[in-house]
């Protein structure tokens, strides 16, 4: 499994400075913390949507960013799949074209994830001809997940993918996420501020607070330590 090493200092738009360092060696790691703690900024820095002031980010053998050596790989060369909270499907393309967008642009030599397998695991077969505007929130999120997978990323970044969904739908999508993790065994960084999601999906948790790592550990250790733990602090 590719290991992610992340060390970064970056001035956050809300004013405080992000100063975070961690390694990801588990299958699913969760970035857990309240809104404005810098979780999404970390994902944007890894995905290449933001250019850090000072950082070193490595994925496996590849250096994505090393500001000391003026290395900053373009977003399209990082092979990192980012699934946004509001899915961001391309509204002018139908589901099949959305799914194939990244597949057609896959890096040479990248591990191939099979289209039909993704369609089967995420149950997208009946949606292929539909336009994104004709899909429900849960269906859109499944398509966004499938689209990211088909670009054959080496790391999957999920930015609160369930935040906009109601409780029963969250449960269904979590089941799909579990299937994806089991099927393709991609290292995954899962951003959430919901303890129940983190507990169900993550092997390891990194708690962020005001741009700093406040705690790390297994979900059971970090989320349920009683008074003063991350969960109680975030009023979950």
């Amino acid at each position, binding site marked *: 499994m590719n290991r992610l090493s992340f060390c970064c200092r970056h001035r956050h738009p809300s004013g405080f400075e992000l100063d975070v360092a961690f390694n990801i060696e588990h299958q699913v790691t969760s970035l857990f913390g309240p809104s404005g703690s810098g979780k999404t900024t970390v994902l944007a820095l890894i995905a*290449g949507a933001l250019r850090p002031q000072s950082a070193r980010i490595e994925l496996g053998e590849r250096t994505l960013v090393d500001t000391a050596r003026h290395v900053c790989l373009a977003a399209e060369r990082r092979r*990192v799949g*980012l699934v946004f909270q509001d899915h961001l499907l*391309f509204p002018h393309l139908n589901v099949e074209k959305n799914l194939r967008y*990244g597949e057609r642009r896959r890096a040479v030599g990248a591990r191939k994830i099979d289209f039909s397998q993704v369609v089967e695991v995420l149950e997208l077969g009946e949606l292929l001809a539909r336009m994104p505007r004709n899909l429900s929130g849960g269906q859109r999120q499944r398509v966004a997940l499938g689209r990211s997978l088909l670009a054959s990323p080496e790391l999957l970044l999920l930015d609160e993918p369930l935040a906009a969904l109601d409780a029963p739908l969250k449960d269904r999508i979590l089941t799909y996420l579990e299937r994806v993790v089991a099927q393709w065994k991609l290292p995954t960084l899962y951003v959430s501020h919901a303890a129940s999601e983190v507990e169900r999906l993550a092997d390891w948790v990194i708690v962020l607070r005001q741009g700093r790592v406040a705690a790390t550990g297994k979900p059971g250790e970090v989320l349920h330590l009683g008074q003063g733990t991350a969960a109680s602090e975030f009023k979950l």
Partner: protein
Amino acid sequence: MLTTSEWSALELSLRVGVCAVAASLPTAIPIAYLLARGAARASWPIQAIRWLVQLGVDLPLVLPPVVTGYLLLVCLVPGGPIGSVLDRWFGVRLVFTWWAAALASAVVSFPLLVRTIRLAFQNVDPRLEIAARGLGAGPLDSFFSVTLPLARRGILAGAILAFARCLGEFGATIMVLGSSEGRRTIPLAIYSLSHRPGGMERSWRLVLLSVGLACAALIASELLERRQSLRESA
């Protein structure tokens, strides 16, 4: 029915408008995109360059068209900075040809074109480009596969508005084209007719034609923009 000279004015106006817009689009689209996507937190030299580009683009909007035409004439005459190069290298003289009228129309309608296209680009969520980049598309690829298709109706609406502006262009056109028989656009023909005895009555057909063309262009542009808004809200 229209007379021969009225047909000639209509044909010249349409030719000038189509060529002016077609020639402007390849420049207007990248400039509008850069102005739409310019980072608010860019460094001051970048901000200054953006401001200068914006100023240059908007200038013909506030300058009297006759002044724009005068400046073009100074540049395009055989001894002028552009005219001398065209004359010496290519043996081409633009002044008092319909090409000069097309150039004048392009310059005058350019701010309108850029502003409309810029709005169309601003309506495309920039995060869609980030999503495209994350899926392996380079900057040009994401522009052509995501941003441009999503902004296409706005671009078309801008092109129609600019075309309508070209049809109405008078001041700059008369400076670089003159006003001789057979070489008059619709506004020039109306102006010429209205200064002849009985010309006011004879101008009516061209006036109505101008109003009709302008209304059709505005309706088409409005419909396209509405369809784009409906699509976005869906």
